[in-house]
C-alpha cells in the first residue's frame, strides 16, 4: 500500500519532538493567535479543496486522534471518574486549552454535558451563526472513548461563535452500542 492509500493513523506522541531541546530559547509556549492561524487557514483550505462538510469531518477526526493520544499520554485512565475529570480540568487549565466544567454526568447512562470556557479554538471569535468547535468535539470524544472504552457522539450545543459566552457540549454513547 502506498503512502497515499493508507487508512490507519501513524501518529505517535514522540512525533511532537523534543521541544525543550529544539526550542531552548523560545521554549514551550506560543500565542493563541498563531494556533488559530494554523487551524482556521487549514479549515479554509480543506473547505475550498473538498467542501465545508468534509472540512468539518476532517477536523472532528483530527481532534479525536489528538484527544485519544492526549488521554493516553497525559492522563491517568485508572482514576475514578470524578478524579479523572478533576485531573483533566487541571491539565487543560495548565496547558491553556480552556476551562473545563462538567454540568451533568450520568455514569449509568454515560450521558454528559460539559462546557469549555476561554476555549483555545473559539472564544473571542466574531459571530458566525454556527458552531465551530468541531476539533473540540473530536478531542472530547477521543478522551471519553479512551477513558471508558466505549464509543461516544459529542455534539457542540452552544459556542462563542453562535453568540454564547461558553462552549457547551453534550456527549452520549453511540446508539449502536
Amino acid at each position, binding site marked *: 500500500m502506498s503512502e497515499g492509500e493508507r487508512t490507519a493513523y501513524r501518529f505517535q506522541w514522540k512525533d511532537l519532538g523534543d521541544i525543550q531541546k529544539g526550542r531552548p530559547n523560545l521554549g514551550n509556549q506560543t500565542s493563541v493567535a498563531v494556533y488559530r492561524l494554523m487551524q482556521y487557514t487549514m479549515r479554509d483550505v480543506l473547505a475550498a479543496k473538498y467542501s465545508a462538510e468534509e472540512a468539518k469531518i476532517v477536523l472532528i477526526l483530527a481532534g479525536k486522534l489528538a484527544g485519544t493520544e492526549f488521554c493516553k499520554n497525559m492522563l491517568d485512565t485508572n482514576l475514578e471518574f470524578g478524579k479523572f475529570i478533576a485531573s483533566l480540568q487541571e491539565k487543560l487549565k495548565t496547558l491553556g486549552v480552556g476551562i473545563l466544567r462538567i454540568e451533568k454526568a450520568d455514569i449509568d447512562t454515560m450521558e454528559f*454535558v460539559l462546557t469549555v470556557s476561554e476555549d483555545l479554538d473559539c472564544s473571542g471569535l466574531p459571530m458566525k451563526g454556527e458552531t465551530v468547535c468541531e476539533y473540540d468535539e473530536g478531542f472530547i470524544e477521543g478522551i471519553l472513548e479512551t477513558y471508558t472504552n466505549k464509543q461516544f457522539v459529542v455534539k457542540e450545543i452552544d459556542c462563542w461563535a453562535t453568540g454564547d*459566552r461558553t462552549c457547551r457540549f453534550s456527549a452520549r454513547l453511540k446508539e449502536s452500542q
Partner: protein
Amino acid sequence: MIGEIRDALDRLLHGEVPSPIVPAAGDDDDMAQLCRVTNSLIEAFADAHDFVTALGQGNLDVHVPPRNLLISPYKQLHSNLRHLTWQTQQVAKGDLSQRVDFLGEFSEAFNSMIDSLKEKKRAEHALKEANSKIMASMRYARTIQLSFLPDTEEMGAELGDFFFIWNPKDIVSGDLFFFRSLNDGFLISVMDCTGHGVPGGMMTMIAGSSLSRVLQDVGHDDPALVLHELNNLMRRSLNQQSPEAKSNDGLDLGLCRVDQAKGLLTFAGAGIRLYYSLHGEIHEMKGDKQSIGYRSSDPEYRFTNHSIRLDPSMRFYMNTDGITDQIGGPKGLSFGRRAFTRLLREIHEEPMSRQKSILEQEIAEYRGKEVQLDDMTVVGFVV
C-alpha cells in the same frame, strides 16, 4: 402598524411579553421587515423571560434557548451553577479532588472548604489508624486476661455444677474471678477492681498475683485473714500507704473457702456479698463495707468470716456490681439487688447452664438500648 410596534416595544420595556404583531395586507417591504424583526425580538424576549425566571427560582434543569443573544451572560451563569452543583455532588460522595477556578470569591470559598474537608479526612484517617492499633492491642490484652481466668475443666472436676458470666464493658475487664483446688476442697473468689478497660485489666493482674502471693504466705483456711493481708499488700504494691499518694485504686472482693471434709463454707467479703439458696429461699452473707487496697482502706481493718454448713441442695452466687448497677427498664433505673435476688429465687433450682442463660437474657432485656456501664461478673456453683 407603527403604533402596534411602539406598544409592543413599550410592553417589552416594562418586562411584559406582548402578542406577535400580525402584518397588514397592504404594508410595504420595510414595514413587513420591521414587523418580522419586532416579532423576533418578542420571541427572544419571551424565551429569555422564561429562562431567567426559572434560573432565578433555582431550576437548573430549565430548557436553555439556543441562539438567543439576549441571555448569553445568563447562560454562562446557568452553566457555572450546573457545574458547581455537579462538583458539590462529587464532594458529597467523598471526592475531594474537585477545585473551582476563575469564579472569584466563590472559588476561594469552595476551595478553602475542600482543603478543610481534606484536613478533616486526614485527621479521621489518623484517628482510625490509631483506633485500629489500640483495638488490636486491646484484643491481645483480652487474650492474655482470658488465660488468667480459672481453668473450667479444673472447676468442673471439683464442683457439682457451676456457671460464670464474665462480660467486660470494654474488651478487657476490671473484673476477675479466681478458683483453686485444694486437697480438702477449694477456694473461689470474685474481684471487682477500680475502673474497666485497660486500667481495670492492669488492676486485675496486680490483684490476682497479689492474692496468690497472700495465699502462699498465710494459707487458705482463713478468708478474713487473706483479705486483711491482701489489703496491705495491695496498698504497698500501689504505693498507697501514704495519704499523699497520687493514685487511689483498689478492689472489692468476695472469697469462699469450701472445706468438703468438714462440710463447711467460710466466706469473707470486701464490698461483695455471697448469696445462697436454702429451702427455696435466697439468703445473703453481707461482706464488710471495707474495700481493699485503696489509700483510704484501713490497714488495721479485720475482715469477718461467715461460715455455713453445707447442704447438697444449696446453690451459691457471687457477683460484681456491674449487674445490679446497670441502668435500664422503662424508668431508666438500676437493675438493683432486690431484682437480682428475686431472679435467683425464681431460677435457683434450674441447672446452672440454664440459670446462666436466663440471667444473661434478663440483664440484656433490662438493659435494652442503654450502654453497658460496667464490667459484669456472676459466678454460681454447687458444692
